């Protein structure tokens, strides 16, 4: 078995604020194998973006981190900016949601790609420019020899994101970390960008850590998936296992609340009541319990650990894991539809019950 390129073990991130400590990430563990595509899904505030920023060492200095992050066996947490430099770009390349935050508006895109190439490779400017044009071709920019001398504002949003992907590919990284890379884009543009991302993976053989809230995108591209809620991993497994036999009520609820393109609309949607928890002063127990119709006393008292369902073992990295006291029942489908097909406003329900 090949060694993982990235190992995250019991990662915790806390932000001290005036209102108390915000526990953004509470004990997240996962690993990424060479060539693997891992999707991290969750709603706003679930801790998925903070996890990715912690991996890259991009959190503000006020953040308190513990646990370990290893890239090819070497620890990343606690490294200085200087020590991170060989990793960023060459080891792990990052793609952000808004391409305008990664591209500098006052430089031509060619300059920016060449800068990235020369940061890690000993090539002259002419050679770097050739590489840059080749990269732009690969991500599907028409007329790359001319467009290389354009400024970011001369590109559409989708084209800019493809330029960012070209920069991410520039140094043949081992991991591409993409945080909501297609969220702000129209669907046909999203399809173009995902296509560019797929070709980037083919060329570089990099692993992809894809952070998104779109379950459809994960279904199309990921091998395995992590579902985050309340700063924790609440479900993890191969994409098929998690999508077809979810074992955590939250995952099951997310899937049932989505209107689907391939359904004729005759089924009522099933919303999840309540809203995600505030990450200050989390009550004991399962963070999803206030919104969960299955919750009983134990759910409000004891936070469930990630356990393997369907006869798997926690040690097996491809096992299907879920953090729920009723994981086996949810997994087996014996509980029936968990959420009601209602149109009521359910957002205060959790607060009132608790």
């Amino acid at each position, binding site marked *: 078995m090949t060694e993982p390129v990235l190992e995250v073990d019991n990662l915790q991130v806390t932000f001290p604020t005036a209102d108390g400590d915000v526990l953004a990430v509470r004990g997240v563990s996962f690993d990424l194998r060479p060539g693997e595509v891992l999707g991290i899904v969750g*709603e*706003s505030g679930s801790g998925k973006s903070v996890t990715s920023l912690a991996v890259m060492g991009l959190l503000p200095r006020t953040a308190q981190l513990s646990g370990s992050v290893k890239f090819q066996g070497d620890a990343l947490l606690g490294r200085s900016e200087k020590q991170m430099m060989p990793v960023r770009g060459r080891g792990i390349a990052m793609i952000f949601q808004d391409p305008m935050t990664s591209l500098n508006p006052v430089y031509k895109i060619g300059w920016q790609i060449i800068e990235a190439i020369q940061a890690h490779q000993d090539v002259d400017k002419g050679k770097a420019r050739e590489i840059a044009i080749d990269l732009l071709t690969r991500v599907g920019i*028409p007329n790359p020899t001319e467009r290389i001398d354009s400024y970011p504002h001369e590109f*559409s949003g*989708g*084209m800019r994101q493809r330029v960012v992907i070209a920069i991410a590919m520039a140094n043949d990284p081992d991991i591409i970390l993409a945080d909501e890379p297609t969220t702000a884009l*129209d*669907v*046909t*543009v*999203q*399809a*173009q960008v995902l*296509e560019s991302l797929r070709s980037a993976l083919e060329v570089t053989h990099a692993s992809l850590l894809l952070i998104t*809230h*779109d*379950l*459809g*995108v*994960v*279904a*199309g591209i990921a091998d395995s998936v992590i579902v985050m809620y309340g700063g924790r991993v609440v479900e993890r497994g191969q*994409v*098929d296992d998690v*999508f*077809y036999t979810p074992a955590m009520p939250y995952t099951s*609820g*997310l*899937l049932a*609340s*989505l*209107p*689907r*393109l*391939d*359904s*004729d*609309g*005759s089924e*009522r*949607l*099933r*919303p*999840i009541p309540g*809203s995600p928890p505030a990450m200050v002063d989390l009550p004991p127990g399962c963070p999803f319990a206030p919104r969960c119709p299955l919750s009983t006393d134990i759910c409000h008292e004891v936070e469930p650990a990630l356990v393997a369902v369907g006869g798997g073992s926690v040690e097996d990295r491809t096992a299907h894991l879920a953090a729920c006291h009723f994981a086996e029942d949810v997994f087996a489908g014996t509980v029936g539809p968990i959420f009601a*097909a*209602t*149109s*009521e*406003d*359910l*957002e205060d329900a959790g607060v009132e019950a608790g």
Partner: protein
Amino acid sequence: MTDTELDPAPNGSALEVPNAPLLEVRDLVKHFPVRGGSIRRHKIGDVHAVCGISFDLEAGRTLGLVGESGCGKSTTGRTVLQLTRPTSGSVRYDGTELSTLDGRELQRMRRQIQFVFQDPYASLDPKMTVGLQIREPLEVHGLWTKTSGPKAVADVLKQVGLSPSHVNRYPNEFSGGQRQRIGIARALILRPRLLVLDEPVSALDVSIQAGVVNLLEDLQQEMGLTYLFVAHDLSVVRHICHRVAVMYLGKIVEIGDRADIYDRPTHPYTQALLSAVPIPDPHKERARKRIVLEGDVPSPINPPTGCRFRTRCWKAQEVCANEEPALIERGQGHPVACHFPEIDRVVG
């Protein structure tokens, strides 16, 4: 819920004239001037936002206007309500031409046509209690009385699934989904017949979105409402709309019943659009045919001649550049604006 189940509206007021469309839009055009020049600003062109679109909307039904950013769907919604006046064309509501009405007459018509905005954070006044915002339309239309008013506000809050005790709260005390319900309550207080909904759920988290979608379905059944539903999310549109019009660069390229568009998409753009929407089902999603379009949407200031989609279309021939395809029935059972129509079941 199937189309046939939704069809009859229980309380009859919306269905006084059977089969006559409640809303008839004909050859609607909206241009916005583009100004340029360095010292004296002068008009240098027009953004052709909406370019001659026509559709009917029957009482008690939902028409979805779909398309990507800049296709003119929101401008169409606003122009129907005369929030911006059309450059030309006609908008008839229940037999009355709206585009020539003056302000006072238009205000009277707006008792029957209301608008729900996309962003529930921007469309509510943060300094005004929810109760005052919901009753404001009643005051504007001279319908507010101390005796019946408070009850009307309480009733409409209940109808959108909120507690009547919330009237004295401010918008910041509510979540996004609840704010959108307040926006819907404000539109419903006048008991309108037609609602124009501009991306009503796209700002909400998925788990919250489902409740608002269900609410809109219930309200339509209870009150016999007619919806013009402007959205970019084709999955939501399939769920909620009876008819769907697909727009590209200011034109409708294909229009039909929900099953026509999703099961028998005929225009190449509709096919590309549908094939790009991800389905949260790994086996299906990986086995699907995907049409990835080349390039970007052309500028609406100087749109292509002939068919506007031809610059990105894999079927384009010379005729597409010379002759604009009309939106007519071409043998697939619903109108499509393409010289080379052919059904391709991309949804799978």
